[in-house]
């Protein structure tokens, strides 16, 4: 990366940090909410990218081998997510009102789970597991470049199986801890799956955009248009999955209409939040569903880029709607310079870490046993 570009990306991050600090003086919850948003979006991309890699290993999916270094480099963003988690942890007193349960019978009852020592311990467990397993998968993949031994593939199949189990539990609980506990009176058992659906969708779109970008460069000459088409098909499939899970959560609550459950949706469906609530459905489901339904749409690169952008905006809006309403205390949605800068700095921070990881190693895993099959992919 040219140093001018690196300076630009770094300065975006620095300006955002300054802006967040300044906002923190006046509206601490808004500033911390923004950090939490950045964390949830970034973590979703990182863990979703590793989910993609693990899926290919477990299913012996050959097609994605030529582009695997891109999701692998996306997992290099995990330290950034860990740093943001530290900031969120430091701001726990302002973010999570279960920290002060006194006088609230429900929260006092939930203290068994929602208490600071256990919360801290859980965060430590999640991140150690993620660092361990993702580190092993990436390490084996890279070691294969050196010695070309297929044993690394077998080892990664086992680590991928471990990742799937660990990820399913840890991501679900991390979503409960970091996001759902912003409204500690409310609970939804599907919340982790819902967050996963959006996270994997965003990981797929980011991967697709990066593949489209790098395909034009020589270093990824084995990536063909058909690989992009396959990614487009996955985006299409998972936008339906997202809508399915979104609706599964919504419909049960809407149907039974019990106050302790509807408390989540009522503020989000009223006042100035209402248009955002429906825009969320449109960006995450309607646009990619109708946009990628056709045969040619999945093969038209400029169009695909537009749909990916819409889905990424949808993910940001989705996370905004998860995090911000409980922190704005009955106000309408606030979207100003600090939100815009936070979103921009996710991209900046992501690109900085991504580039750093990507160029450390050969860009094509040519010693993977399935590499040839992947390079000769055909529809």
């Amino acid at each position, binding site marked *: 990366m040219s140093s001018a570009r690196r300076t630009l990306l770094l300065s975006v991050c620095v300006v955002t940090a300054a802006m967040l600090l300044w906002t923190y003086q006046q509206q601490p919850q808004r500033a911390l909410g923004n950090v939490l948003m950045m964390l949830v979006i970034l973590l979703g991309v990182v863990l979703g990218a590793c989910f993609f890699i693990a899926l290919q290993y477990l299913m012996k999916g050959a097609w994605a081998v030529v582009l695997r270094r891109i999701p692998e480099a996306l997992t290099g963003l995990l330290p950034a997510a860990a740093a943001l988690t530290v900031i969120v942890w430091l701001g726990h007193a302002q973010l999570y009102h279960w920290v002060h349960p006194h006088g609230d019978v429900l929260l006092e009852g939930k203290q068994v789970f929602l208490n600071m020592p256990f919360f801290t311990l859980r965060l430590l467990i999640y991140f150690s597991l993620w660092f361990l397993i993702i580190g092993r998968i990436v390490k084996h993949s890279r070691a294969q470049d050196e010695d070309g031994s297929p044993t690394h593939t077998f080892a990664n199949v086992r680590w991928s199986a471990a990742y799937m189990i660990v990820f399913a539990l840890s991501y679900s609980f991390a979503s409960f801890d970091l996001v759902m506990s912003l409204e500690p009176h409310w609970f939804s058992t599907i919340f982790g799956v819902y967050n996963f659906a959006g996270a994997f969708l965003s990981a797929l779109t980011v991967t697709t955009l990066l593949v489209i970008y790098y395909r034009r460069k020589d270093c990824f000459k084995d990536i063909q248009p058909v690989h992009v088409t396959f990614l487009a098909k996955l985006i299409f499939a998972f936008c339906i999955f997202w809508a399915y899970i979104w*609706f599964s959560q*919504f*419909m049960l609550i*809407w*149907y039974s*209409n019990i106050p302790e459950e509807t408390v989540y949706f009522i503020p989000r469906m009223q006042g100035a939040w209402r248009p955002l609530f429906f825009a969320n459905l449109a960006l995450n489901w309607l646009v990619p569903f109708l946009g990628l*339904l*056709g*045969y040619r749409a999945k093969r038209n690169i400029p169009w695909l880029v537009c749909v990916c952008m819409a889905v990424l905006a949808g993910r940001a809006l989705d996370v905004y709607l998860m995090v911000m309403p409980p922190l704005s205390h009955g106000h309408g949605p606030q979207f100003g310079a600090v939100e815009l800068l936070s979103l921009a700095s996710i991209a900046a921070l992501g690109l900085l870490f991504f580039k750093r990881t990507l160029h450390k190693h050969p860009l094509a895993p040519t010693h993977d046993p399935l590499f040839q099959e992947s390079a000769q992919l*055909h*529809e």
Partner: protein
Amino acid sequence: MAADIKFYLGIFDDEHKLLSATRAAQQSGFDIYDCYTPYAVHGLDQAMGLAHSKLGWIALFGGLLGFVVALHLQIWTSAYNWPINVGGKPYISLPAFIPITFELTVLLCGLIGLGGMITLGKLGPTLRPSVIGKHGCTSHRFILALRSYNQNLDLGAAHNLLLHHGAMECKWYEES
């Protein structure tokens, strides 16, 4: 008088030879009747110059039909024909209708898509196998069938093309 239709078969032992022969035959303007292979050969559709399948449109029609039928059925039964008050919700409560609408969309899309595939591919119990099952094309041979309509096939050129691309054997085939 019935038209005189015969097939000139090129029999190959390798899918790559079949692919290159098919591509060449398509470019030289031969009337490619069909290819017979033991398994689906990637890229054969393009090599044969087949047009893009219309199956997607048929499936879309099926999906839309299921969507409309399901919504119409539910709205008509629960709001017009016999209005029932469920939990104080409006008679037309779209969220309650979505699961059935989704299921019927998927069901009719799938069934009509399946029917469309069978129809377009001329499959089904009435199918009379022609070359299929003969000359080993269900186990280890790859066959390119060129059609001769009222003896319009340039036999010399076809024979040379097939041999040039590695055919093991060339022979006439007539449907009885």
